[in-house]
């Protein structure tokens, strides 16, 4: 069972282009994290949005149910810790994480 093609050559777009923009969204980089995840304490959070704007993997998105706060996305977070260092109020901190919890759906803090 040597390497085989992933799709028929006839099904490739012209010039092997990728015609679905942002198809990487289906790729789980969350499993790159090991043993811990960043968690936001919304009491301390001042809604400055630095975690949202400074995350290299765009894991934070506005929480529709709580104006100004941000949800964290387990599916993409690689556990780099930039948000923890850059949060002006140290509202984000590491929390131990068991393997099975990693693949939960995108969840709020």
């Amino acid at each position, binding site marked *: 069972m040597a*390497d085989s093609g992933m799709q028929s050559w006839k099904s*490739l*777009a012209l010039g092997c282009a990728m015609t679905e923009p942002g198809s990487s969204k289906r790729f789980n980089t969350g499993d790159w994290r090991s043993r811990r995840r960043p968690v936001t304490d919304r009491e301390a959070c001042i809604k400055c949005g630095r975690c949202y704007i400074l995350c290299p993997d765009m894991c934070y998105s506005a929480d529709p149910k709580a104006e100004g706060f941000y949800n964290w996305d387990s599916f993409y977070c690689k556990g780099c810790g930039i948000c923890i260092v850059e949060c002006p109020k140290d509202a984000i901190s590491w929390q131990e994480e068991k393997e099975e919890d990693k693949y939960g759906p995108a969840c709020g803090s």
Partner: protein
Amino acid sequence: MGQRVGLEVSLACSEAAKLANVDVIAAYPITPQTHIVEHLSELVADGDLDAEFVPVESEHTAMSACVGSSAAGARTFTSTASQGLALMHEILFIASALRLPIVMAVANRSLSGPISIWNDHSDIMAERDIGWIQYFAENGQEVLDLTLAAFKIAEDKRVLLPVAVNLDGFVLTHVIEPIEMPDQSEVDAYLPSFEPQQKLDIAHPISMGMVGMPEVYTEAKKACLDALEKSYSVIREHWDGFAKQFGRQYKPIESYKTEGADVLFVTMGSLGETCMTAVDEMRAQGLKVGQVRIRMWRPFPADDFMAAIKGAKSLVVMDRALQPGAVSGPVATELKSLLYDKGQSIFVSNFVIGLGGRDVTRADFANMAKKTMEAQSAGKEIACEMWGVKE
């Protein structure tokens, strides 16, 4: 009908690009191609051609810019020669892999070292595997016609591959000869505007030039290979269409006095016409010789070639480029491998001739035919002989 003018062949090439109403020309000067791009810049400067003329800083950038403009959906033309073509080498493969219908005129000139600005085919022979459609013009009219047809072929949805039109440096580019200049209306009837199948468009974003992971690279190459192989019939179709529109018919393999010929010369490019005259003279002396000219080089028209040489006893194959360390010259190697596949054991002699601008005369053809017949009857082979080397 167009009108008949005396025109330098280079300018006929530029006129073809103008008649095709190209959108972008990105080119860098190099002898002997320079007149093509100079004339284009004049046409643009005078408003005779509405196009962006991009005076790039190198041929590597010329082809890169052509990839960019073609990917943006613009009809794109460039031309180069020798070292310039060599400098484009890396990007030529990518242009075909991205299926971009760029048209390029190559004013064939030898490759350095030593540096030589004169004519032979070593530049294009070094680019055999780039995945482009490649064909040869043999005189000025053919340069204009085949450049026009190149856009039609390249942009056909069944093809969508770049096309290289080869014309011999100096021997064609710098010659004034009669050119039948078609009317714009005739050209517009033959060549519709370019409607790209996919392009860089913020309304329909796509990613071009992705990393070809091991799981897809083979299939990506197969798709391009298939397009090049299938382009054969589309080229025939559009050459026939050209004949209906303009009255001049082009075929993948052109034959001359092959009926009843024992010995056939095989030529490419501008040597063809001198060789035809040599055949006339030899026929007059009762020698059974004829000539086959390879116009379509990639994809190689195997069946047409086999049909054209039916009945011949020996082939005198002209190569105008060396293949150092190989069994024989590039064209001869191609033909011998084809003959082997077809179980044909026809005698083949191979001469590398006309390197670096050295002239090829009718006498050369006569002597090569004589030498071939002598070798064949003596049971000796001429695997690859450099013709006319001063010992």
